[in-house]
C-alpha cells in the first residue's frame, strides 16, 4: 500500500511563501513525477511528504493515516537523494543494511535482504567496497538499494539522475522504470527535465511558483495543456507561440504550435519565413525560422529536409494541432 494525499499543504520559510496550498492525490502503485523549472517548489513539496520539512499548514495522509506531524522514520517512505547521500565510512553492504539495522532486524535476515537487493541492482560484486570506490552510476544504485531493502510504502526520488552523465542518465532512467514495474510500489520523482517526466511518469504534476499548474498523464499534458506554461514546458523542443494577426484570425490572443506539427514546403503555405539555422541530425531536421511577421519559431521535419541558411520556407500548422490561448495564457 502506498497512497499519499495532500490537503491544502502550505509551506512558508519566514515571510516567503514557497507553496501556497497544494491538493494532490497519489494513488497506490503510481509513478508520479513532479516537474517544473528550478525554484518552483517541487523539491520542497517532496521534502514535506518525506517529513524533512514541517508543513506550515494543511494535512499529509499516507495510506489514509494523518502523518502531517510524524517523524520521517515513521512514515515508511524511502528517499533517494540527488547527491546519493551514502554513508562514506560504511561498506556498500552496511550502507544498504543501515535502515534494517535501525529497525532492529536480526543479522541473518539483514544479510538475506541485502543480497536480494544487491542481486536486483547488480551490486553483488561491490558489497565490500566503500562508496568512494564506486562510479556515479554504482553509487546511485547503492542509494536505490538502501531504499528498496526497507520495502517502503513509497519511494521518493529527488532529482536522482542530475549528477550522472547523459548516457548513464538514459540507462538509469530505464532501470528505475523497470524497477517500478517489478516492485509496483508508489514512486514520487522530482525532476526539472521534462524528458524524464514524459518517459517515466504515469502521472505528471507540473509546478510553477509552488502552484500545481496541471496534473495528468504525459500524453494528456502533451495533447491538452491547460495553459501556456504547461504547453511550453512539456514537449521538446518547446512549443512555438505566435501572437498578433495569425492568432486573432483564430479568435485567440496567442496560438501555439509544436515544432513537429508543421507541414513545410518551399513553395506555399500559411506562414512565410526565412531559415536561420538548419540543424541536420539525420533522423530529424530542426529549422530555426524567422517569420515575416517578426516572430521566431522552431520547426521539426522528420528525416532529412534539404534547406539551408537564408532559404525561403512556408509553413502550415497541421489540422487540429493548433492550441489557442487567451490574454491570461489559459487554453481556449
Amino acid at each position, binding site marked *: 500500500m502506498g497512497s499519499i494525499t495532500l490537503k491544502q499543504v502550505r509551506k512558508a520559510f519566514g515571510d516567503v511563501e514557497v507553496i501556497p496550498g497544494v491538493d494532490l492525490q497519489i494513488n497506490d502503485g503510481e509513478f508520479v513525477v513532479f516537474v517544473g523549472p528550478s525554484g518552483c517548489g517541487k523539491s520542497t513539496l517532496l521534502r514535506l511528504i*518525506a517529513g*524533512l520539512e514541517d508543513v506550515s499548514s494543511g494535512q499529509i495522509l499516507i495510506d489514509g493515516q494523518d502523518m502531517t506531524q510524524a*517523524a*520521517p*522514520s515513521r512514515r515508511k*517512505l*524511502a*528517499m533517494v*537523494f*540527488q*547527491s546519493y*547521500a*551514502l*554513508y*562514506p*565510512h560504511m561498506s556498500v553492504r552496511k550502507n544498504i543494511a*543501515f*535502515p534494517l539495522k*535501525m*529497525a532492529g532486524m536480526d543479522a541473518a535476515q539483514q544479510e538475506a535482504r541485502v543480497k536480494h537487493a544487491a542481486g536486483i541492482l547488480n551490486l553483488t560484486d561491490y558489497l565490500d567496497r566503500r562508496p568512494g570506490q564506486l562510479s556515479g552510476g554504482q553509487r546511485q544504485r547503492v542509494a536505490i538499494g*538502501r531504499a528498496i531493502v*526497507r520495502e517502503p510504502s513509497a519511494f521518493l526520488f529527488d532529482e536522482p539522475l542530475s549528477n550522472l552523465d547523459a548516457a548513464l542518465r538514459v540507462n538509469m532512467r530505464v532501470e528505475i522504470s523497470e524497477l517500478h514495474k517489478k516492485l509496483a510500489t508508489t514512486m514520487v520523482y522530482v525532476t526539472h527535465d521534462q524528458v524524464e517526466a514524459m518517459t517515466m511518469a504515469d502521472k505528471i504534476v507540473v509546478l510553477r511558483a509552488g502552484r500545481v499548474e496541471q496534473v495528468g498523464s504525459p500524453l494528456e499534458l502533451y495533447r491538452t495543456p491547460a495553459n501556456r506554461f504547461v504547453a511550453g514546458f512539456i514537449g521538446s523542443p518547446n512549443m512555438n507561440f505566435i501572437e498578433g494577426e495569425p492568432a486573432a484570425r483564430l479568435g485567440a490572443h496567442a496560438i501555439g504550435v509544436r515544432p513537429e506539427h508543421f507541414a513545410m514546403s518551399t513553395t506555399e503555405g500559411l506562414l512565410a519565413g526565412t531559415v536561420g539555422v538548419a540543424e541536420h541530425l539525420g533522423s530529424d531536421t530542426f529549422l530555426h525560422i524567422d517569420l515575416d511577421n517578426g516572430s521566431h519559431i522552431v520547426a521539426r521535419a522528420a528525416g532529412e529536409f534539404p534547406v539551408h541558411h537564408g532559404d525561403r520556407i512556408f509553413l502550415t500548422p497541421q489540422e487540429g494541432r493548433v492550441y489557442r490561448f487567451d490574454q491570461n495564457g489559459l487554453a481556449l
Partner: protein
Amino acid sequence: MARRVSETRRWTFTILAWLVALAIFFPILWTILTSFKSEADAIASPPKFLFFDWTTENYAEVQSRSPYFRHFMNSVIISVGSTLLGLLIAIPAAWSMAFQPAKRTKDLLMWMLSTKMMPAAGVLIPMYLMFRSFGLLDTRIGITVVLMLINLPIITWMLYTYFREIPGEILEAARMDGASLSKEIIHVLTPMAVPGIASTLLLNVILAWNEAFWTLNLTTSKAAPLTTFIASYSSPEGLFYAKLSAASTMAIAPILILGWFSQKQLVRGLTFGAVK
C-alpha cells in the same frame, strides 16, 4: 604549471626557513641542554653550549625531591578528563549549531569566542572564592571542570567547523532510514567526523596539559599537575636553573612525544576540508 624558482632564491628561502625553525625550537633545546649541566655551568658567562660536564644529577635530585609520577598522573587525568568532558558537551552543541542553525547562531558562536578574549586574571578572585566555598581548591574534579570550561569555546568552534563540512543530506538520509537523533549522531555523524574530533581532542589535550594560570592558582599539591611541579623549582634564592630545566624537560617530554606521533593526524585535522 608549476612556478619556476631560481636556484639562489630556493637556497635563500631554505636557509631562512631553517633559521626561523631553529629560533622557534631554540628555547626548548636550551632547556634540555641546561638540564644536563651543573648549576654552576647553567649560569656560566659566556654560556656553555655543548662543552660542559654532562650530568644527570639534576634528574636524580628532582626525582628525589618531588613525586614526578603523581604530578604526571594529575596532568594526564586533568587534560584528558577536561577534553573528554568538553567533547561530551561540545559534540551535541556543535551538531545543533551546524545542522539546525537559528537566527542568532553566528552571534552565539562569536559570544563564545569572545569569552576567550577576557583576561583570566579578571575572574581569578571570584573563581578562587567560589572554589573555596565549594571545597574544590586543590581537587582534580575542580581543576578538570575549570579547564573544560576554558577550552569549551575552542572545542565547540573546532567541531562546528568540521561538522559544517558534512553534507546535511547524509544526515537526512539517516533520518529517512529510521535513525533517531541519538543514533544519527552515534552511527553517522561521529564516525564521519572522526578526523576532526581526533584533532580537536589532541589539540585540547595539549592546551590543557600546558595550561598554567589556573593550575598554578587553584592547585597546590594533591591535584597539582606538572605545571605546578615545574614552578616549585623556581625559588627566590640559590641556584635553580639546572633543576628547573630538568623538571621542565620531564614535564614537556610526554606531550612532545604525543605531538610527534600524532602530527599527521593533527595537520590533517586542522586542514580538514581545506583541500579535497
